[in-house]
């Protein structure tokens, strides 16, 4: 007699020709589309084979399975069947709607079939022998009705509560898994975690290809979900425990250890909104797509620099997303107006978006997931996180670092410039607290307090800036109603002077310069006087000299006149005495000489 079971098998055998079931050299994988899970498993779940997902209550088994189906239908064109033993179709649709999955729409478009199997414990009477052919028929019908490639059975263990004959049940389950393989569908079977074994009813015995363990545990009052691939036959897989998030966009596993460092970089530089700061960074600001860490003690003006950065981005016409974990958007806008920075127009025009949430609102995983969603939705060119430190308090040290790594990596991969504000405790900006985070950052600005002279002043310096020339100088950071500015701090023999000390020093220098000027003027005038006196003397002497020259000439003239007169007299005498002229002349000369002597 021909049995129904074998009949059904014949039916499936006919459909076995599909490529999914065809053995390949490499184990074919079925991508889940779940962020991170495909990276851990090296491409997805084993195609055409069942995978067991086990874990305690509330650790996300159903969600993982549902996302596997939804992603398959939407991203990979693989219709799926969801056989639910615990939740009704309406419940399931409502539950995943909050994750942005339009399960109802997928069902309407015949991409997903949901079959709710209702099993009330103790309601079914068993009498005699039976098999679970009804389940097979339903599953087979559902698969064939839409040509499903993926199947989820959630949670198959409900059968153990509904049916008493465990011997039949186990035999049928074994047959079911074999049948699923023959059918060539990639199946995910969820199961409750057992005390001393993976699943309460030992389902791992039947599913031997891939086992994923989910776990939800609390560390330091913070609950985190973890995922581990316990077994993956025939494939390499990450064996670590990976934290995973259930966010508004579904599941996201954080495979920190498998993040590749191969993002593209940009040579474009973008301004910070503070010209002097740009000047410190080689005159052109930061690289686009780089990650910037801004640390500082309380009240050093971190948010102001961040807001300037946002303002500059929006002025360039780029979208900017501002994650604020301490202040509400209105408060930030109001406070920055006091220094003349108007952000409101940008908020209104949609270039600037604030996302404010208390860090304690929910766990780190949720924060990260919401941030991812916001970033994916808004697609900003610049992201500001103010401050990252309060967010990091929401998780353990390791988790926070993993989170920041993932965030930085995500932003870098999309060439989004990111500014992380970090609050340091204590009087001085200690660097070791950020040591873990700083290695992830491309640039690091440090804001610090300088105390002295009964006042407190802010200084800023560039601690590091990968790949660009930058100033090593400390600059004083001034905040006034006209905005912010950086000025050279006074560096003298007594160290760095800021604030009033710098002002006093400048004044002192000014006074000294003024005194010097006065002194020089006085000396100049003095010298001028001396010079004029000398000049007067010179002109006196010259007139004297000229007077004596005139006298000399007069004397000469006198002598010549006298001589002539004398000669004339002698000649006249000689003529009168009839003397020889030459003798007279000679005699005259001798006479003259004698008189001159």
């Amino acid at each position, binding site marked *: *007699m*021909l*049995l*129904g*079971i074998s*009949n*059904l098998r014949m039916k499936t055998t006919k459909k076995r020709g599909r490529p999914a079931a065809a053995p390949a050299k490499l184990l074919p994988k079925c991508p889940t589309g779940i962020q991170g899970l495909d990276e851990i498993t090296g491409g997805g779940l084993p195609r055409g084979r069942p995978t067991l997902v086990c874990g305690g209550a509330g650790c996300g088994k159903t969600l993982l399975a549902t996302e596997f189906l939804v992603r398959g239908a939407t991203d990979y064109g693989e219709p799926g069947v969801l056989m639910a033993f615990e939740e009704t179709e309406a419940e399931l649709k409502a539950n995943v709607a909050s994750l942005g999955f339009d399960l109802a729409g997928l069902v309407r478009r015949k991409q997903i079939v949901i*079959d709710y*199997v*209702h*099993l009330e414990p103790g*309601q*079914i*009477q*068993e*009498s*005699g*022998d*039976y*098999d*679970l*052919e*009804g*389940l097979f*028929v*339903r599953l*087979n*019908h559902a698969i064939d009705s839409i040509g499903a490639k993926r199947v989820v059975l959630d949670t198959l263990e409900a*059968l153990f509560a*509904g*049916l008493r004959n465990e011997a039949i049940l186990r035999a049928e389950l074994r047959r079911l898994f074999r049948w699923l393989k023959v059918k060539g569908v990639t199946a995910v079977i969820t199961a409750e975690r057992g005390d001393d074994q993976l699943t309460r009813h030992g389902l791992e015995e039947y599913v031997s290809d891939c086992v994923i363990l989910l776990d939800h545990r609390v560390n330091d009052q913070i609950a985190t979900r973890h995922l581990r691939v316990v077994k993956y036959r025939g494939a390499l897989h990450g064996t670590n425990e990976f934290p995973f998030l259930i966010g508004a966009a579904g599941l996201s596993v954080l495979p920190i250890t498998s993040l590749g460092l191969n993002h593209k970089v940009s040579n474009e530089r973008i301004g910070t909104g503070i010209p002097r700061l740009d000047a410190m960074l080689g005159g052109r600001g930061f690289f686009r797509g780089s990650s910037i860490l801004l640390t500082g003690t309380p009240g050093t003006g971190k948010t102001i620099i961040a807001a300037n950065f946002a303002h500059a981005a929006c002025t360039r016409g780029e979208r900017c997303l501002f994650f604020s974990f301490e202040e509400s958007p209105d408060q930030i806008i109001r406070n920055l107006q006091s220094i003349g920075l108007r952000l409101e127009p940008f908020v209104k025009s949609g270039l600037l978006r604030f996302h404010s949430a208390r860090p304690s609102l929910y766990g780190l995983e949720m924060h990260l997931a919401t941030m991812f969603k916001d970033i994916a939705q808004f697609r900003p060119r610049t992201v500001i996180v103010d401050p990252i430190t309060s967010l990091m308090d929401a998780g353990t040290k390791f988790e926070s670092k993993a989170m920041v790594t993932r965030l930085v990596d995500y932003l870098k991969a999309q060439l989004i410039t990111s500014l992380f504000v970090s609050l340091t405790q204590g009087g001085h900006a200690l660097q070791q607290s950020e040591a873990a985070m700083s290695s992830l950052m491309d640039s690091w600005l440090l804001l610090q307090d300088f105390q002295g002279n009964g006042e407190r002043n802010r200084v800023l310096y560039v601690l590091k800036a990968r790949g660009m020339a930058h100033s090593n100088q400390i600059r004083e950071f001034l905040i006034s109603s006209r905005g912010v500015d950086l000025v050279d701090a006074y560096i003298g023999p007594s160290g760095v002077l800021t604030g009033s000390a710098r002002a006093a020093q400048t004044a002192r220098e000014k006074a000294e310069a003024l005194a010097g000027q006065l002194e020089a003027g006085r000396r100049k005038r003095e010298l001028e006087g001396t010079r004029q006196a000398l000049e007067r003397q010179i002109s006196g002497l010259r007139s004297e000299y000229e007077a004596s020259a005139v006298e000399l000439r007069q004397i000469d003239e006198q002598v010549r006149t006298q001589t002539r007169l004398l000669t004339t007299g002698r000649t006249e005498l000689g003529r009168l005495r009839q003397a020889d002229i030459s003798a007279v002349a000679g005699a005259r000369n001798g006479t003259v000489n004698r008189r001159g002597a």
Partner: protein
Amino acid sequence: MTRKAVPPAASAIRRRAAKLWQLRLYVMDQTPNSVAALSSLRRLCEQCLKGHYRIKVIDLLKHPQLARGDQILAVPTVVRRLPSPVRTVIGSLADTERVLIGLDLRAAD
């Protein structure tokens, strides 16, 4: 098989039998379990509900889409559609006592 009257022995049965019983038997082709279940059910109904029952046999091999409506998992399955509430018994119905309890069908004897 809608026949009226035929007074049963006990009054309790009369009260229950006043209405027509609607039973569905889900089978899978002609498997031994299915065949056994059908004959058992017929025998029991004849004993307790003579003339006041209707059995609809549904072959899931021919109508797989019908399995969902009555939440069928196991084969064979008997579903008591009427009188309400719905009651379900699975198996070859070899254990008569259990069938009677399951369908709330006290034997006339």
